[in-house]
């Protein structure tokens, strides 16, 4: 059962492996270049396991003043999107026993996107499938961060543009769910609201407003056609 689930999960995580190794290594390299030992990126990637916030935390650690409350609140803001990930997974994570807390702990953007877009293949245990997706993704990230700190500066080839692998991944996920669902309004609302907020508010402050706007759109959509059962 475990082997089958592992084999089913692995291919979906490979693109994330490439992306996480690259991003993780840049993160590890950055930490080391700022004077931290490799233990920092290794443990931070293991326990925080939220990419963008780990980059931010590197800056927090370099500040002269000690402000844990500020760090906590900042994290809530940066990671607020995870609240919505959790809400979308309430049903999927039901009845999974000890795996459930770990699945929640490891629910990063990329893992979430697989949970959303890839239903476990027929005959494969749902819990183990999601467990291996989560474990593999975390393994890639921690390995990348640690390797980056240890070896990052030894790598000499032009990697400009390789970060596009993440964009490509999300685009593929987007296309998959587009074909699976009849109602395209949720996807269009997601793209439209976020693009609007990005163009109006700029790249630093658009994420939370975009989420608010998306929720408002769904409130409106739901009120307009309350009897409608969604996809």
């Amino acid at each position, binding site marked *: 059962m475990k082997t089958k689930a592992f084999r089913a999960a692995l*291919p979906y995580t*490979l693109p994330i492996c*490439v992306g996480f190794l690259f991003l993780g290594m840049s993160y590890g390299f950055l930490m080391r270049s700022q004077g931290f030992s490799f233990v920092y990126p290794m*443990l931070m990637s293991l326990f*925080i*396991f*939220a990419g963008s916030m780990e980059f931010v935390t590197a800056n*927090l*650690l370099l500040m002269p003043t*000690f402000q*844990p409350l500020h760090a*906590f*609140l*900042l*994290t*809530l803001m940066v*990671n607020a*999107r*995870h*609240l*919505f*990930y959790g*809400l*979308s*997974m*309430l049903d999927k994570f*039901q*009845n999974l026993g000890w795996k459930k807390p770990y699945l929640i*702990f490891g629910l990063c*953007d990329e893992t979430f*996107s697989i949970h*959303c*877009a890839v239903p476990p293949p027929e005959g494969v245990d749902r819990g183990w499938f999601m467990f291996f997706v989560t474990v593999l993704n975390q393994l890639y990230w921690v390995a990348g961060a640690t390797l980056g700190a240890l070896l990052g500066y030894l790598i000499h080839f032009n990697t*400009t*543009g390789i970060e*596009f692998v993440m*964009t*490509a991944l*999300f*685009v*593929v*996920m*987007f296309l998959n*769910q*587009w074909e699976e*669902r009849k109602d395209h*309004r*949720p*996807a269009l609302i*997601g793209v439209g*609201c*976020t693009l609007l907020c*990005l163009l109006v508010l700029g*790249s630093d402050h658009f*994420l939370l407003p975009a989420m608010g706007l998306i929720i408002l759109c*769904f409130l409106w*959509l*739901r009120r307009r056609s309350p009897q409608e059962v*969604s*996809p």
Partner: protein
Amino acid sequence: MTILQQVLTVAAVVLGTMTTRFLPFLLFPEGKQPPAFIRYLGTVLPSAVIGLLVVFCLKDAVFTSWHGLPELLGILVVALLHRWKKNILLSIAGGTIFYMVLVQMVF
């Protein structure tokens, strides 16, 4: 900062991250049915959030001198490859290599 202060700062970040991840599950434990609108959100949000993440990836590109043109071309290649072969790895690798060539040699 001392090492202890650094550890506490990282702990605060871990606590913040875990709050955002565990809160929905603590508010709506198994067996406790969330309100209808929350359940509705659960069905429509995944599609919307993937759309959000696509735009999120483009957040810096939009404001560069090319206004995201290389990224749009890359996305076009990903979409065409995906429509053609339906192979996740091929679409992603093809699109990324195309984009890398584009930003390293053309733009």
